[in-house]
């Protein structure tokens, strides 16, 4: 029991410590409030498609994480590609959305 409580406390503090040290709030992606680029650029279209992929596939099961360091955006997209059976196009769009 003590070990379990200790691990919970460690996880909570590690989460806050690493999240704060890995990127400032300005450069952290916030999937629920993404920066939508101009539609005229290919990157803009990708990001908009990625936002749709996120809301249609990830949000069907769970709420968006409040934000995470850009360093793990690719890993998150990789995980979702497997879990949600995303196509290659959806995966690339999601990656572009999570780490523009």
């Amino acid at each position, binding site marked *: *029991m003590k070990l*379990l*409580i200790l*691990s*919970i406390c460690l*996880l*909570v503090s*590690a*989460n806050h410590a*690493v*999240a704060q*040290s*890995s990127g400032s709030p300005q450069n952290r992606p916030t999937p*629920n409030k993404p920066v939508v680029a101009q539609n005229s650029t290919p990157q803009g279209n990708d990001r908009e498609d990625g936002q*749709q992929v996120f809301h*249609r596939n990830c949000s*069907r*099961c*769970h*709420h*968006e*994480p*409040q934000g*995470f*360091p*850009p*360093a*793990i*955006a*690719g*890993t*998150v997209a*990789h*995980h979702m*590609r*497997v*879990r949600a*059976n*995303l*196509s*290659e*196009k*959806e995966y690339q769009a999601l*990656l572009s959305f999570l*780490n523009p």
Partner: protein
Amino acid sequence: MIFRHTPSWPHVSRFRILGFAATLLFGAVYSIRAQDTPLLSGGAGFLTQTTAGNTTYIPTVAPVLEFPITDRLLIESKANLLESAFPRPGRGYDTSHYVALAYLQGDFQANSHATLTGGYFYTPFNTFNERLSPIWINSFTDGPLISSIGVGSSSGSILGGMIRGNAFHNASASITYDLYFSANSAKEQFSSTRLAGTRVGFYFPRTGLEGGVSFNRVLQGTHSSNTGAHLWWTPPGSRLRFRSEYAHAVHSQGYWFELGSQLAGPADSARFIARVEPVFRFQQTFRSKPDATDGLPGANTQRADFGLNYRLRNELRINTSYSRRFSTTGNANIWQSGLVYRFLFPAWRSK
């Protein structure tokens, strides 16, 4: 005292293997892209359940490790650790603990339509086991009564191989598939049943409608089949969601459906009302023959669950629910509550 003589070559061999593994790991870490840093995620919670006046307290942690080796190969693992404090009549409280591997798998992206998975992985049967069972996702603190059908072990995972992917995809529809087989394993952390199965799903993004069918065949002992179906509806532009599942095993069957909705939209997420989420679940199970192995109640059961969840922040949520269970073995009130925290951070600092 007994000294065992061991030839020197096995030590050398061990060092070589260790060195080779370390080189591989080192190479992998430096070959992955900057955005592919391994991550630690998961959930931690403190759950309580009061059934017919008896309260059980369950602190739990479920860490998840995601470790990309290349842009096509991902290693994933999850464990469940929980301590349970439950009342013993006339003797106060007793405790028990449970530590189990939920999955340890490697996923290789073979092409745009196929991912190969090997290891110990969640059985892709219906939706709850693979998609909704994590405590930071589930709207209730426990799973549906039929969630043990078709999953192949008490942990919900099987030891074997799988091919899965997106068979077809365009702007208005997508079709997904999973094909898998597994071996019989009695190892404590890798318990598994020998089975083969498939799941096919469809999704129409414009209407928010999703459905699918699951089937697997148990290939050990007395061979039998499990079948399932699911239907979800998330109307676009609406906060409402509807989820349902049906499952049939050789001696039992059942269904559940769940309705949930946020009371206000994300735009109002700072407001109290936008953080409240009422949820309703109804479930029913039917038993045709006694069977202690399928995990369903011993008698026909109906249960209605009324939940009210509140998100303190996106990562922290309070779950509360009241359930009424009707069964020939006795009716009961079930009260559940939980404080659930979801964490997500890089496994180490990156540049």
